[in-house]
């Protein structure tokens, strides 16, 4: 099979390979990236080269176990308490339960955040702690399992311009399941079927930003803005 390619096509193929391999100078790389931003064919060509290179690496590079210090340092860098907000310290698992319930109780009993009519018979609650991309968001979820209703209250923060927030359920080892989009006005009531309600205790709720109408793929595509576990109220 002898495909005929123009010199320009051949040149782009080689440039894509050189880009993927890190063989371009800084200037050539910047020029190529600028072209790639508006040229899906070039992006596809780079994807093809990255895939071939990764295949060669899978075949020829041997596994070597890193020292256990790497995993320990990673935990310190990523999850060290004093680098994160109060809620991120509690998040995502375990510790959050009692403290979240206490703070929620304080907020409810002092009336700072909840109005009477917003209350469901909530037996599960989640405080969704903002990720770095979600700084400034204050989002809480109340679940009335008997009624099969999830209420999401957003008291601070907005989705980025032209995006909407989507609520996801992560139960155990399963992939995220969409529970629906959040309304623009800050309070959203979502009806949830009983088979999904059964998955809620102990599961994680998360908010991502998505294009209008929600994730086109059925899995989160935008940045995760906030997340937190559901615990008994």
């Amino acid at each position, binding site marked *: 099979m002898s495909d005929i390619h123009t010199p320009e096509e051949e040149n782009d193929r080689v440039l894509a390979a050189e880009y993927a391999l*890190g063989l371009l100078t800084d200037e050539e790389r910047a020029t190529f990236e600028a072209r790639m931003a508006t040229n899906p064919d070039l992006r596809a060509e780079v994807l093809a080269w990255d895939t071939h290179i990764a295949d060669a690496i899978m075949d*020829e*590079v041997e596994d070597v176990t890193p020292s256990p*210090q790497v995993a320990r340092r*990673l935990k310190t860098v990523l999850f060290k308490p004093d680098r994160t907000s109060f809620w991120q310290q509690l998040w995502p698992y375990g510790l959050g339960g009692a403290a979240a319930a206490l703070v929620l109780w304080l907020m409810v009993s002092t009336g700072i955040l909840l109005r009477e009519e917003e209350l469901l018979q909530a037996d599960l609650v989640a405080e969704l702690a903002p990720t770095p991309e979600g700084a400034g968001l204050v989002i809480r979820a109340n679940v009335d399992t008997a009624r099969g209703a999830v209420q999401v209250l957003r008291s601070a923060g907005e989705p980025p311009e032209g995006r909407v927030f989507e609520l996801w359920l992560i139960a155990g080892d399963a992939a995220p399941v969409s529970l629906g989009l959040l309304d623009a006005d800050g309070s959203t009531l979502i009806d949830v079927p009983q088979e999904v309600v059964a998955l809620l205790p102990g599961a994680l709720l998360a908010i991502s930003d998505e294009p209008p109408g929600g994730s086109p793929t059925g899995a989160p595509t935008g940045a995760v803005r906030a997340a937190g576990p559901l615990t008994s109220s």
Partner: protein
Amino acid sequence: MTPQEEVENLIARVAMGDRAAFDKLYERTSAKLFGVCLRVLNDRVEAEEVLQDVFVTVWNKADSYKVNGYSPMTWLITITRNRAVDRKRALKLPPVPIETADLLPDSAPGPEASAVAASEARQIQACLDELPRARAHLVRRAYLEGYSYADLSEATGVNLNTIRTWLRRSLLALRECLSR
């Protein structure tokens, strides 16, 4: 679940801030990715720093994975290789010389090629094997060890423009072979 689906699923959960999934992803993939770092940098301390940096990126950027069209291992390996190559360039590590014997024109498949040919070689291996042995050797240095044109020139003593011409021709030949 295939290993690919499993890694994909773990990345999706890491994107949602799931630390248990992050631990599992590290457990499944760190040895392969560390192998990549070590092959490029040939220095354990540097390689471990790059590996740490890669997993910090994975934790922070896992939510961008789904939209980019990469298979999960390709995505992880590409991030790792690029980081390791950047570090190698910054450190200006001297290239390991390439033996004259490896540069002799010889269209017969080299020893590694025939060993692979005996097993079920992947397409990329089959295509590398179609290159003259000396050219395949240069391509492997660039693919697996992140050599630049300047590194290859220094390692072989062949001038830079000649090296560039050789490698570009080899890449085009590979591309033709891979699209067959």
